[in-house]
């Protein structure tokens, strides 16, 4: 029993078939008179629909354009500022990614130096990088730089940061940094998604606006 291709004839007629489906329909049409006749019927219908132009008089184009022009409301020009804001959409994730890469490289290097240092290969040349009892390098540098200008609160804050070892090799702090970046990144993704959704809903609202009577 021959399986007809009736359901695909419309798509074939409209040039919407390709690949194996197209070859199958073409092969079938070559040997099936019934389907060829159906295709011819569809072709005739299409020709009939297109040859019959509306037997009505439309408003001439110039007058129609004038009528539309009269109805055009004032429109605020597209704010140029929005264009400049666009790069911010990718600068935020790019910045976060750069921060994450920086953190990974720093932590990796730090771990490497510690490992090498422990083997004694570098003698004590890297000892100053190791976190220990003494304050971190950056805390000492900051203390020296601002020694004269720092008030009591500033000094306490610096001491606290040094003790907390914010930029040090403490595993717990490292994890905190990673989580912080991840939270910011996901926060940005959600914000972006909400923004896109809002834009899409606006566009849909545009196309579904009620017709003014």
């Amino acid at each position, binding site marked *: 029993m021959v399986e007809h291709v009736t359901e695909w004839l419309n798509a074939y007629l409209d040039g919407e078939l390709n690949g194996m489906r197209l070859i199958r329909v073409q092969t079938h049409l070559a040997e099936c008179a019934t389907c060829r006749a159906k295709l011819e*019927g569809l072709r005739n219908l299409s020709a009939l629909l297109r040859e019959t132009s509306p037997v009505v008089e439309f408003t001439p184009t110039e007058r129609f354009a004038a009528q*539309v022009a009269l109805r055009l*409301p004032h429109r605020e020009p597209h704010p140029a500022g929005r264009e400049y804001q666009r790069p911010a959409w990718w600068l935020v994730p790019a910045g976060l990614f750069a921060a994450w890469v920086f953190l990974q490289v720093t932590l990796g290097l730090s771990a490497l130096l510690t490992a090498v240092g422990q083997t004694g290969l570098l003698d004590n040349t890297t000892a100053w990088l190791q976190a220990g009892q003494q304050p971190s390098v950056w805390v000492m540098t900051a203390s020296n730089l601002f020694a004269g200008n720092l008030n009591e609160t500033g000094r306490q804050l610096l001491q606290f940061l040094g003790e907390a070892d914010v930029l040090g090799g403490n595993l717990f702090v490292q994890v905190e940094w990673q989580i912080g970046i991840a939270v910011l990144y996901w926060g940005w993704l959600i914000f972006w998604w909400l923004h896109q959704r809002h834009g899409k809903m606006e566009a849909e609202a545009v196309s579904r606006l009620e017709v003014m009577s």
Partner: protein
Amino acid sequence: MGDVHVNKMTVNKEKGQRVLITKSAEVEADLILRAQQGDRNAFGELVRRHHREVVDLVYRMCGDVQLAEDAAQEAFVRAWLHLDSYRPLTALRNWLYRIAVNAALDMLRRERGTGEDIQSLALHDRQPGPETLLVQKERAALVQAAILSLTPASRTVLVLREYGELSYQEIANILEVPMGTVMSRLNYARNRLRELLAEQLSPLEVEDG
């Protein structure tokens, strides 16, 4: 020798057409840009360029000149208001069709229940005149009435395909339905039209063979 000359002429003609099409697309892109910046004259030119195809398409959907022109006007006003959201990835014509189709569907929803049936519409358009013209007019009226007897969903797909000459994908995008739905609605619409017109017109027109 003559053949070569003819071939050259054909090639030149094709090149000329291509240049014209490119030029036209450039002009349109420039008009859109100017209209987006608030130039009403540029938008007016866009209206003149697309007026007829938009009105024609909407008329095929609703079968009423006044309704078609109102919906087309409404579509152009909406297009003006939201020109900022237009992206050149879609042809302006398709974007206008999208807005016009939605405007027309809104109107049809409001008008539902007041539509005339296929017979009365055909008779309504019958006017005195030369016999050939009368036949043409009758045929056009019958075709239009048959299209109008379809459900709005399948009618819209048929009109966008036959008169808007859009691809299935473009229709799916405009109506926000899957491609499979476009295909099934089109199958239904054409089968139904063949039945309706087979009853009304000469059997040769839509005979299966």
